[in-house]
């Protein structure tokens, strides 16, 4: 115990001797592992390449400037596709995530034993597969294009939205729900009056937040053929058209910044 009696006075220390030794032991082991791993990585690294890296980066950068502004006309359509993939994918995810979240939340699920595990499984499987992997699979199933992109963004986002939403549902103030129930309201009315108003701000926040993430995610989907700005990016990289690559990167940055600005505004308006 941290409290002990020494020479008749009660003394207090944060840890007793045993806990103190254990703490030191943990730090010592951690340091040892770090040093060992450093050694291991260092052995397997071709340092010549690493020392060469700044020169290579500088070279690549030189080939990227100035961006090829003339090719921008061909990019409006792909970037519009990207925005649509993000927006429609998010929309699809929300529509599916709401009932899933309702079934997953402990306090609203119709059955803790049967329905809830199914809902949780949907959430976990959706969350554990990256949208790029979804896209890879969907392109082989339904062919390349924007639709595959929308589906992969949607499938990836269901779990994210449903998880955050069901956590919000579980955190509601039950006394408000109880008060609505006490009036003789039906189950649907209890949901509409007691639960929905409480989770609405969280719901809106989650949706906008996911849309913001999806704009970033949808920029890479073209790399596997699922439409959007990733398609010309992939083409530019394979043809070594570095000035076009830099332009596309600038365009992606601009889009993401705009998306974040919009989502910040919306979230600010809700909360």
């Amino acid at each position, binding site marked *: 115990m941290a409290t002990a009696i020494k020479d008749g006075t009660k003394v207090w220390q944060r840890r007793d001797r045993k806990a103190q030794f254990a703490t030191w032991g943990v730090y010592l082991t951690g340091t040892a592992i770090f040093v060992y791993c450093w050694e291991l990585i260092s052995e397997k690294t071709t340092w010549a390449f690493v020392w060469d890296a700044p020169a290579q980066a500088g070279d690549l950068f030189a080939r990227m400037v100035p961006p090829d502004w003339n090719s921008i006309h061909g990019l409006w359509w792909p970037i519009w596709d990207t925005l649509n993939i993000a927006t429609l994918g998010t929309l699809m995810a929300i529509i599916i995530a709401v009932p899933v979240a309702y079934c997953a939340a402990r306090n609203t699920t119709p059955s803790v034993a049967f329905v809830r595990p199914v809902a949780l499984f949907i959430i976990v499987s959706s969350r554990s597969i990256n949208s790029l992997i979804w896209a890879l699979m969907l392109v082989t199933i339904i062919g390349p294009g924007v639709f595959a992109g929308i589906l992969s963004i949607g499938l990836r986002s269901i779990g994210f939205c449903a998880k955050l939403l069901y956590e919000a549902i579980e955190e509601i*103030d039950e*006394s*408000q729900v*109880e*008060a*609505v*129930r*006490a*009036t*003789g*309201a*039906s189950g*649907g*009315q209890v949901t*509409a*009056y*007691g639960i929905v*108003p*409480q989770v*609405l*701000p969280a719901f809106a926040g989650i949706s906008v937040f996911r849309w913001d993430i999806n704009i970033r995610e949808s920029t890479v989907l073209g790399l596997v053929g699922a439409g959007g700005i990733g398609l010309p990016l992939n083409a530019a990289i394979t043809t070594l058209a570095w000035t076009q690559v830099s332009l596309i990167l600038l365009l992606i940055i601009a889009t993401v910044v705009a998306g974040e600005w919009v989502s910040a505004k919306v979230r600010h308006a809700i909360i």
Partner: protein
Amino acid sequence: MRSIGYGGGPMLRIKGLTKRYRTGDLALKGIDLDVPDGQVMALIGPSGAGKSTVIRCINRLVEPTAGTVMLNDLEVTTLGRGELRRARRRMGMIFQEYALVERLSVMENVLSGRLGYVGFWQSYFRKFPQSDIDEAFRLLARVGLDHMADKRADELSGGQRQRVGICRALIQNPELLLVDEPTASLDPKTSRQIMRLIKELCAERKLSAIINIHDVMLAQMFAERIVGLRVGEIVYDGPPENLTADVLTKIYGEEDWSATIRKVDDEAAEMEADEVIPPELPLPSRDRMAGLT
């Protein structure tokens, strides 16, 4: 439609009410309690005595383990889901911490008391009958909040919120009010105003009420009858005047009660001296309530 207690019997009759929670705790040990028509009764007792469980077993927000609850001629304890919802319309409930839906407006909160009477879509699109809306405005005016109808509930002060809670309970047109610690989060002055309001409204509408309350003095000032609960059993049932130090010790345990008892007498006298409550209040009484905010 309000049905008046039949045959002169009690409007609420509780028999052998027992509740054992899933944790194994026996919260109520076979309570027998009759509440006559129009009686305002205070239920006092230490925390954990089972006060909240009693009133939640009456409208079955908590399912009783055993025993019966009769509301006039209706046995509440055996009702199916739909019938239970219809029975709940006859029992208005007022909560500790108000339990208003914070993000809905005052009007929506009051109208939510009518949810048992309207269909889902009607309530979803907020298309309540004009008669309900009239009644909501009437009640809000009665408690001095008719100018607040469009405010969001979380913009209101504690006393205002509890008055909205009272309107929500009354718009159900209940026969019985179940009141759970109505003053637990209010300051002493607002607490009295809220208790007085509940008492007046019960008198106006000839309602019975069961009021769970921690504050012994408030209970004595505003209730006609006091029931003392201790670890799931009724240990006192009688008029407020008979609440002696011995009785309080029986309910709450050993403590020096002399100050509590003396103070009540003083305050009751003081109240009669400086406050004249008109028996029938003219509407709207906002001026009278203006001081509450």
